[in-house]
């Protein structure tokens, strides 16, 4: 049974217009002159003949049709065509005999029935994340679409004020068949909750005999194709919403998972990689008076010569582990330090040596024992110890072990020169630690340079965790 109509005068042409919702009818459209009336004012005029054809619904629904929903009969009273930049959808307004409103959204070849509701957990649509929780009917809903809709056409009557050309922001969320729609402006946020319905089911409820138009595919990359997907009634379909714009799609999940695995893998590998290296040889140097000038002390072999080593061919880098032997402490407070330079040398060729010799002669200088060597790699390290008493507590700080990684393109014979020098401070000079020190240089081959792996792994893992935290915050954010 259709809802009893009352007749009101069109504010534009005076024609009698049927309205069904009594005082609650806020907007009605005169089908004769196209006046969109709100109260006693004409707020817009539509060219009904042209617009009705242009904005024909995709389905076969028409105003005045009745169908049973939620156990009661509803009548289609109004329709609003909403346009986005490249697609559109229809909002059908339907009312029960006792004035309960429902909204039937028609888009993408399907239908959703909406009711207004107050969410248990109101969200602020302006800054909502990709997942939202609005009520306790289930888990989080995924935000599938956001945008700004423009009212393109109105027919029939509505219980709210609407004018063609009006715009509003909207946000659509999905969770299984449950749908949430949030329409918002600075003045109002309206929350709607609904369920998607099969098109054939809607047709059956309204007793429509025609076949449901096929859901048309939409190529959202090509806006110029709009005309291509009109059906035989000249209908255009609703554009499939991009679900990837605001959510993490399959690609995103793979990327995050892959990054996490890579980060953890790098961390683990950097921890175990040390076990892959092989010890080549160790050399211990004891203090010897430097043969050069200054106050440095040369640590060489027992013969005061650089040690000849052969660097084997290595798949990875070499590692140099320097371990200095600490000298003792004297007194309650004190300290000393020294700088150490470990140089890898190669013998110069005879031609080179000849040229250098000639040059030195010209300058009036003489060759020393190091002239015949060319430095190809150098490691500088600081060793030292400081101790004292603060507030009755003894403290001691020292640094006697250093690691250094290096690569050389040419395995083969090298010479090592170790040179140390007291720090400039008074206590170091007084203690003369270098004079008492010794240092062990251990060489390892097939070394993985894992420091970048360690920091890369840390960075990657932290980034992934921050991403996940941000996403979870978005999922459970209430505003």
């Amino acid at each position, binding site marked *: 049974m259709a809802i009893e109509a*009352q007749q009101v005068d069109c504010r534009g042409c005076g024609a009698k217009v049927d309205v*069904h*919702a*009594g*005082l*609650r009818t*806020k907007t009605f459209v005169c089908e004769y002159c196209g006046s969109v009336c709100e109260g006693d004012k004409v707020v817009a005029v539509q060219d009904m003949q042209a617009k009705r054809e242009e904005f024909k619904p995709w389905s076969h629904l028409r105003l005045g049709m009745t169908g049973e*929903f*939620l*156990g*009661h009969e*509803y009548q289609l009273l109004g329709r609003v065509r909403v346009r986005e930049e490249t697609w559109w959808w229809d909002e059908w307004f339907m*009312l*029960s*005999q*006792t*004035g*309960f*409103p*429902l909204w039937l959204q028609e888009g993408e070849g399907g239908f959703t029935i909406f*009711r*207004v*509701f*107050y*969410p*248990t957990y*109101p969200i*602020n*649509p*302006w800054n909502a994340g990709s997942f939202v929780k609005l009520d306790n009917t289930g888990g989080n809903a995924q935000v599938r679409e956001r945008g700004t809709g423009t009212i393109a056409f109105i027919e029939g009557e509505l*219980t*709210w*004020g609407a004018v063609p050309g009006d715009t509003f922001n909207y946000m659509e969320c999905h969770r299984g068949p449950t749908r949430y729609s949030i329409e*918002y*402006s*600075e*003045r*109002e*946020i*309206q*929350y709607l909750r609904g369920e998607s319905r099969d098109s054939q089911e809607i047709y059956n409820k309204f007793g429509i005999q025609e076949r449901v138009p096929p859901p048309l595919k939409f190529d959202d990359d090509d806006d110029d194709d709009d005309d291509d997907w009109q059906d035989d009634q000249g209908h255009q379909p609703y554009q499939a919403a991009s679900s990837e714009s605001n959510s993490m799609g399959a690609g995103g999940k793979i990327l995050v998972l892959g990054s996490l695995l890579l980060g953890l893998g790098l961390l683990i590998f950097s921890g175990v990689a040390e076990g892959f290296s092989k010890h080549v040889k160790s050399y211990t140097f004891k203090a010897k008076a430097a043969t050069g000038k200054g106050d440095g002390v040369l640590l060489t072999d027992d013969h005061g010569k650089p040690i000849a080593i052969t660097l084997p061919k290595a798949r990875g880098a070499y590692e140099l582990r320097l371990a200095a032997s600490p000298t003792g402490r004297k007194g309650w407070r004190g300290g000393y330090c020294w700088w150490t330079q470990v140089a890898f040398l190669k013998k110069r060729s005879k031609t080179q040596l000849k040229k250098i010799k000639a040059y030195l002669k010209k300058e009036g200088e003489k060759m020393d024992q190091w002239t015949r060597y060319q430095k190809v790699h150098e490691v500088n390290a600081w060793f030292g110890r400081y101790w004292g008493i603060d507030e009755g507590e003894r403290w001691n700080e020292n640094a006697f072990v250093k690691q250094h990684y290096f690569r050389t393109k040419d395995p083969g014979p090298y010479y090592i020169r170790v040179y140390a020098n007291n720090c400039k401070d008074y206590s170091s000079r007084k203690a003369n630690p270098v004079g008492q020190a010794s240092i062990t240089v251990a060489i390892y081959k097939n070394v993985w340079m894992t420091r970048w792996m360690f920091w890369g792994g840390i960075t990657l893992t932290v980034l992934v965790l921050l991403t996940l935290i941000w996403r979870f915050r978005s999922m459970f954010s*209430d*505003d």
Partner: protein
Amino acid sequence: MPTQQPNMACPSCGAPIDAERRFDEVYNCEYCGNTAFFTQQVSAEGDGTPQSAPIANIFSRFKVGQHGKIRGKTEFNILGNVQIEYPSGYWTEWHLKVGESDFWLQEDEGIYVLFDKRAIEEPLPAIESFQAGSSLDGWNRLPRWFIIEVGKAKVVGFEGQLPWPPKVGEEFTYIDGLGGGQVISMEIEADGTTAALSVGDPLEYEDIEITSEEAGGW
């Protein structure tokens, strides 16, 4: 059974007015549709000029005079209603009597809220700064209040018995919000200082059952 107050008659047509409640100030004549205002002394002159605000068909499942239950246990009688127009449409506030207490059932686009009035114990916040999406925290011992609507509205009609005389046609500002699972609503009159605060529970359609005859469906 409604009782008839002595000396109470419609100032327009003279028809006797049944009143369930001794201290209500507004009555709407069921014969001529006129509205009569009465003071606490039950004076037929009221505040001077009787006003008329005939109600139109508000197309609702509820009617004045019906009774029913909320969530199957709280019984209520519908004494009157107020029709309010706002830019988006209309809403109806139904004046309910629950026991000896007054409640307001707001009906707006298919959602229902059972409101109870709350005293305002703190200075009014600066309403100019409010807009949908903003929030108010810790005011008047209320939970954090997320604003969902701000606008201007006016009473356009009423019927039945009301505890106060509605100011027909006079615009007021309303601010609706959600907080702590409840709906909070504040109405501020044009003078900017007189305000009413209500806190309510949202109800589903199914939560409200009309037990008197002519109970409506969806």
